[in-house]
């Protein structure tokens, strides 16, 4: 059946709604159905996962509703507990399932709020049958620096079978002077108009737009500036322990920064380069333990699923200890994040990137970025292949680990400089690279986990049923993990052969020979 129409019209400043209602009364019986004042809080994850799916999560009191950008309601959960952040804290429902798929482990944070005043009307025909529904809403954005008031908005909803009435109300409203709003996204635009955050200001793919003729210094400033912003963006979320992704993103930004510092070692002044390399290494180091624990805790369900049900209680103590350990590590990390060392590092780094007399703007950084990128990518690719060829079926696991590091370096390079190349070639190559990286990454994760589980098993002492159960559970996990690791190792040869194929070598050659997409170039002229 035809979808029902909804129109959204906005009143001009200083235009009153009452005279319009009076005009409508000449054609319909107008019944005011009630007035409702609420604070509507709009929730999203820090990286706008709902917004990317064109969804709004609106909280009023203890309820959460899921709406489209145009205000269409998809579902609602009521009677939620206070301070709710995660999907798993909600009552089972369709809304929860939708959120689970989209937000995953991220917390829902209040991004914006509107103080709303809604008046609902029914327009009836002579049989006193409702033929059109109207809502007039006035919104005041909550927050400092927000506009005082947004123009009153009228939504007109069609009822099936009463098209003429809908059309006639529409005509009357236009004649009165109301103007149409973008009916697909009016609520989203309204919601965030007073928010300190701008939708999509964080997240998604790493992308820095470099100018085609950019020199190395400028490119480093742009890329590292972007990464610095990500570090600063995530710092508070890590400190407040909002969700585990803050730390994850924080660490990725640090790792990328470190990678760039080491890849472009020769292009950086010796003294500064070595200072920042060692300080960012320190920062990466002090965040590592907490992330490791997070990974285990996030895998809790997967771990439990690996074991037969009678062995599962053996992991209770294991996870309880991890939780405790996590609290301790978080405390330590908070101390580091508040330390003078951290503050100095960030402020020195910022100065290095922006100061007029920064060595980045000196003679040594004038080389064309594109030439450097071509050279370095080619070099990294060769290094990856060299290490890859050397891996044998019975070689040490550390070879796999080293290759993984090489893969990461190559991947980061491609990401840093992606805007200089043809998008299509780049995407294709990254897709191929990702396949082998996944194999290496999974293998490494299993090695690390096995080591940790093994250490835990070695450290078990005492006697009693609890210890026995835990040992049995850990033994069970180790067995499953070792099997998986073996399978990944077996898959490696084929995965590597596919990656190092002549097609992929040619693909890289085409990539390096390629140019930016024409529209990007045109945009800069």
């Amino acid at each position, binding site marked *: *059946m*035809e979808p029902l129409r909804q129109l959204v019209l906005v009143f001009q400043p200083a235009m009153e709604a009452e005279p319009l209602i009076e005009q409508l009364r000449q054609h319909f019986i107008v019944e005011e159905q009630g007035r409702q004042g609420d604070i509507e809080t709009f929730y999203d994850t820090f990286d706008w996962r709902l917004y990317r799916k064109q969804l709004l999560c609106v909280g009023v009191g203890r309820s959460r509703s899921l709406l489209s950008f145009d205000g269409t309601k998809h579902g609602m959960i009521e009677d939620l507990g206070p301070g709710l952040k995660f999907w798993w804290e909600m009552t089972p429902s369709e809304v929860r399932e939708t959120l689970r798929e989209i937000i995953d482990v991220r917390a829902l944070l209040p991004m914006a709020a509107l103080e709303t005043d809604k008046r609902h009307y*029914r327009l009836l025909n002579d*049989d*006193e*049958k*409702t033929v059109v529904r109207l809502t007039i809403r006035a919104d005041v954005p909550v927050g400092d620096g927000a506009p005082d008031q947004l123009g009153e908005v009228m939504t007109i909803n069609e*009822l*099936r*079978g*009463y098209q003429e009435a809908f059309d006639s109300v529409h005509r009357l409203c236009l004649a009165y002077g109301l103007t149409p709003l973008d009916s697909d996204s009016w609520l989203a635009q309204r919601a965030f108009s007073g928010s300190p955050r701008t939708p999509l200001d964080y997240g998604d793919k790493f992308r820095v737009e470099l100018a085609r003729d950019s020199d190395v210094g400028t490119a480093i400033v742009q890329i590292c500036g972007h990464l610095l912003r990500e570090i600063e963006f995530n710092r508070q979320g890590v400190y407040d322990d909002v969700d585990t992704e803050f730390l994850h993103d924080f660490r990725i930004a640090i790792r990328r920064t470190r990678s760039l510092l080491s890849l472009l070692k020769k292009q950086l002044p010796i003294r500064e380069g070595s200072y920042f390399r060692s300080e960012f290494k320190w920062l990466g180091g002090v965040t590592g333990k907490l992330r490791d624990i997070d990974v285990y805790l996030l895998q809790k369900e997967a771990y439990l699923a690996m074991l037969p049900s009678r062995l599962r209680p053996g992991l209770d103590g294991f996870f309880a200890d991890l939780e405790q350990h996590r609290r301790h590590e978080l405390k330590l990390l908070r101390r580091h994040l508040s330390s003078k060392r951290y503050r100095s590092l960030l402020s020195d780094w910022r100065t290095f990137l922006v100061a007029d007399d920064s060595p980045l703007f000196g003679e040594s950084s004038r080389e064309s970025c594109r030439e450097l990128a071509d050279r370095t990518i080619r070099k990294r690719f060769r290094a990856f292949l060299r290490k890859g060829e050397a891996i044998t079926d019975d070689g040490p696991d550390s070879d796999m680990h080293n290759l993984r590091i090489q893969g990461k370096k190559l991947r980061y390079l491609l990401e840093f400089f992606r805007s200089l190349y043809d998008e299509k070639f780049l995407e294709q190559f990254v897709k191929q690279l990702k396949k082998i990286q996944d194999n290496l990454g999974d293998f490494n994760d299993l090695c690390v986990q096995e080591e940790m589980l093994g250490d835990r098993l070695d450290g078990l002492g005492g006697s009693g049923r609890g210890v026995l159960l835990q040992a049995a559970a850990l033994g069970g996990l180790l067995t499953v993990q070792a099997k998986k690791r073996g399978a990944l190792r077996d898959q490696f040869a084929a995965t590597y052969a596919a990656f190092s194929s002549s097609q992929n070598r040619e693909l890289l050659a085409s990539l390096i020979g390629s140019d930016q997409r024409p529209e990007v170039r045109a945009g800069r002229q």
Partner: protein
Amino acid sequence: MKIVAVYSSKGGVGKTATAVNLAYVASRSGQRVLLCDLDPQGAASFYYRIKPKKSFNRDRLLQGRFEHYIRATDFDGLDLLPAHFSFRNLDLALRDEKQAKKRRVLGKLLQPLAKDYDYAILDCPPNLTFLSETIVTAADCVITPVIPTTLSLLALEQLIKLLKKIDCDRRKVISFFSMVERRKTMHQQIMEKYGGYPIFLQTVIPFMAEIEKMGLSRQPVGAGGQQSPAHRAYELLWQEIRQKKLVT
């Protein structure tokens, strides 16, 4: 989409009140419901204050082009296909079709709406004709209100006979006692005698002034207040029908 026909060949047994109120109760529980007023008298349409569009008639219905004639009621999730005076000779229009094909007509007509609604609830005219065969063939469940009187029981018997004749599964018929007046001895006796038969639901709908007054209020009993005893009775009736699994 499940098709629920409220049917009895006898008039005045509370068919329309049942269809109107069950449709309302079902939509209140979040189901998308289309109430089809097949009775040319148009009482269900009247209760929901809906008149058909001028261009609507029997032929439009049979041509399957009736989507545009469906109208929203005042209640979320509940739409209505209004009755038309020309429905009085739906039978005549079906006359020329072959017997077996004719029986499938209604099911086919409703098929395109299957993704739009969870339930089509049919308020059927009181007769025993080709149309009745079409209705019981299309329905997943036939609900027959029975006033605890001999004539009303006879109508139920006739329905069972009809199903047998057209080789239709008799288990799709569900019946309940309607317009029950406990102080009437005959009502009591008949309910005692037949109430235990599996075809009868436990829920009974008493004779209530509130239901009678729907003609004045022109809305389902629940719309006047969720605490209304009549509304509660229809809620229980719907729950019990759903437990029969014919419509879930």
